[in-house]
């Protein structure tokens, strides 16, 4: 009887998990594998256009036929975008989470909602908000810096466009990081702070020896999410600068540019989804490398501790 029950339990588990596995494979793994396969084809994505396997031609074009200066700039932009977003977003989110975890602050739930609001608003509204705020003609920031005799093109200037995109991305995603940090902070037992206070620990010592070590696993998750999220992000760039200027072109924006012919202008060629898929594979390797480097460095740090 026991054997039958165990067998039934095992079968139900497998049956229960099959839909989830199937969904994940069809919606996640399948398209990823298909992207890899399609990167060796000249598929356009236009209905009815025949396509064929062209070997490594897309990769050859990506690495050898494409302008090297532009490729280097795209990689540089991607790294700057990723590092800046990851570092600044997590620092601000940590600071706000600690501040809003303090029970002394009245109406902290309201402030938490305010900080989280951009995440709810979504990328379209966020981008429009910052396009208005940073409008170089008559936006509030332009008027303010105009008081000091300064001007800036913000999203339209090659010098400032990437920084403006980075800030918009941070503003949008910060609430998410803050909420994860808050959850991490609330899981730290209060007794530890009380024991620290009895031992005479100052505020900064409490943070250094209690908060930070115990929050580290949460921060790790946030950092990893920020790295992957920022490397995959193209929406803010598309909606603010249109990616027309190479100053804000990242790898993810480049995938969209080629695969869906986005912002190539009125004299455009057709979509090149095979070539776009080759860029997507390059982006995949880039994200994998960045994540592994971070993972290894964190592991080494943890081993040293």
């Amino acid at each position, binding site marked *: 009887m026991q054997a039958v029950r165990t067998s039934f339990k095992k079968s139900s588990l497998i049956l229960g998990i099959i839909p989830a596995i199937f969904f994940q494979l069809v919606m996640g793994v399948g398209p990823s594998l298909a992207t890899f396969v399609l990167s060796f084809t000249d598929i356009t*994505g*236009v209905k009815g256009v025949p396509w064929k396997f062209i070997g490594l031609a897309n990769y050859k074009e990506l690495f050898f036929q494409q302008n090297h200066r532009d490729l280097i700039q795209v990689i540089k932009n991607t790294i700057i975008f990723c590092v800046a977003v990851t570092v600044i977003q997590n620092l601000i989110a940590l600071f706000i989470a600690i501040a809003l975890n303090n029970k002394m602050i009245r109406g902290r739930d309201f402030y938490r909602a305010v900080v989280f609001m951009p995440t709810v608003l979504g990328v379209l509204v966020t981008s429009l908000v910052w396009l208005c705020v940073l409008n170089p003609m008559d936006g509030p920031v332009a008027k303010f810096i105009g008081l000091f005799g300064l001007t800036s093109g913000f999203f339209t200037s090659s010098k400032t466009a990437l920084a403006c995109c980075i800030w918009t991305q941070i503003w949008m995603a910060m609430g998410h990081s803050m909420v994860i940090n808050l959850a991490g902070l609330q899981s730290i037992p209060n007794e530890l702070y009380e024991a620290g206070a009895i031992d005479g620990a100052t505020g900064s010592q409490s943070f250094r020896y209690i908060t930070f070590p115990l929050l580290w696993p949460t921060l790790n998750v946030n950092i990893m999410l920020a790295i992957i999220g920022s490397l995959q992000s193209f929406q803010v760039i598309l909606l603010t600068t249109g990616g027309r200027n190479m100053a804000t072109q990242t790898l993810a924006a480049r995938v969209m540019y080629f695969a869906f012919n986005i912002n190539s202008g009125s004299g*455009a060629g057709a979509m090149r989804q095979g070539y776009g898929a080759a860029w997507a594979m390059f982006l995949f390797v880039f994200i994998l490398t960045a994540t592994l480097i971070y993972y290894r460095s964190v592991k080494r740090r943890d081993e040293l501790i």
Partner: protein
Amino acid sequence: MKRLLAIFMVIALMLSLVACGGSQQTNESPKATPQGSTSTGGEEAPAEPVTLRMITWVQETNERAIAELNQKFSEKYPNVSFVVDTVNANDYPTLQNTRISAGDVDIITNLSAFDTYPQDFTKGADLPAWVTFIESGAYLDITDQPFIKNWDPNMIENAVSYKGRVYGLDMGAVGFNGVFYNKDIFEQYGFEEPGTWAEFEVICNTLKENGISPITVGAADAWPLTSVGVSAMVGAYEPDMNEFAKGLWTGTRKFTDERCMELWKRFEQLVSWLEPNVMSISYGDAPGRFVAGKAAMMIDGTWNAGAIEDLDPNFRYGYFPIPGDVDGKPNQLQGKYDMQFNIYAHSPNVDWCLKYFEFLSQPEVYGPFVDALGFFPTMPGVQTSNEFVNSLADKNQRFGLAWEKFIITPKGIGQYAAGQCFNISLLKDLGGTVDNVEELARLAQEDWDAALAAIE
């Protein structure tokens, strides 16, 4: 379990690949039979309501003209209604691609005619999107339709044909090698339309000295400056643009040669005459600034006169091509065939689309339509009553194609020589990173040489 997982992975991959290419169909363009043989003959209303799906780009004058045309068609055929979807011109190729791929369209408008086809010297250049669409069978072959004979044979041959077959109707020609100018400001300073670059220089410098921004343009959308503005400047300077384009490909001309550097210097001057923060002015906002007197001139195509008149019907304006070295007064317009209509070949409403084309091919329907568009008509016998278009008659004696119709860049070209090649928006004065035109010319030539070398 491992075997089960492997099976699932294979199924998932197959499903994904099928999703990408499963809808392959014949790549031969379906041919429309002459109207008489279509199932919806006569002028009877269809038994069931029909909704024709159209796509076009955001341009107020065009959108209004299309809406009026559609309304007239619906009045004649009450059960036919329209859904017209629009996006910004920069995003239009994406909308076109996706709607055609999804089969979610009946009538497609195109920004240009079938042109800019690779030439014998443009080795390795990509085929333009319109060739892809024709070869994929997306556009209906309308060669045998009786209404074709109503149209200008030159337009049919040069603008809407490919390999001897006809795939669309072009609604008219436009010029875009010039600027709109504010007549009141010009009269105030005693200016006339300039015949040479030197006269143009005097006008712009005088305006600037008097605190008036000489020129505005919707540079935030990129193309009004880097396509329209650049085409106008190159067209005014190079007498034979095909030779210039060929020279760049064959190496007999360089972006850094003496003659080209003169042109770059003119671009430098043009940049100095543009309104401050011009890179943040959108195409839609530029006419408003022009009408409000924020600048005395506006770089644009003749198609946008309607937007100016909408803003202020009493505003006094004119249009002149940017002049060159020789006093060719009045300088002649250069441009392109604009706004082509195509039928999606696999539309379930092909018969009604053909009826729409037939309706549009009647002079009494096309006449008011082309008036509203502000184009030069492409139907013999149709005279436009659009005052602005008629005022350009003396500038339309030797209409030529613009630079953008001659230049094809090598595959993989870098940012400094992409598009129309003279990417002045990368100059520091316009928010870019390049110090001056000498540096930009050098970078453009490097990008061009690198792209040619990569092809080799």
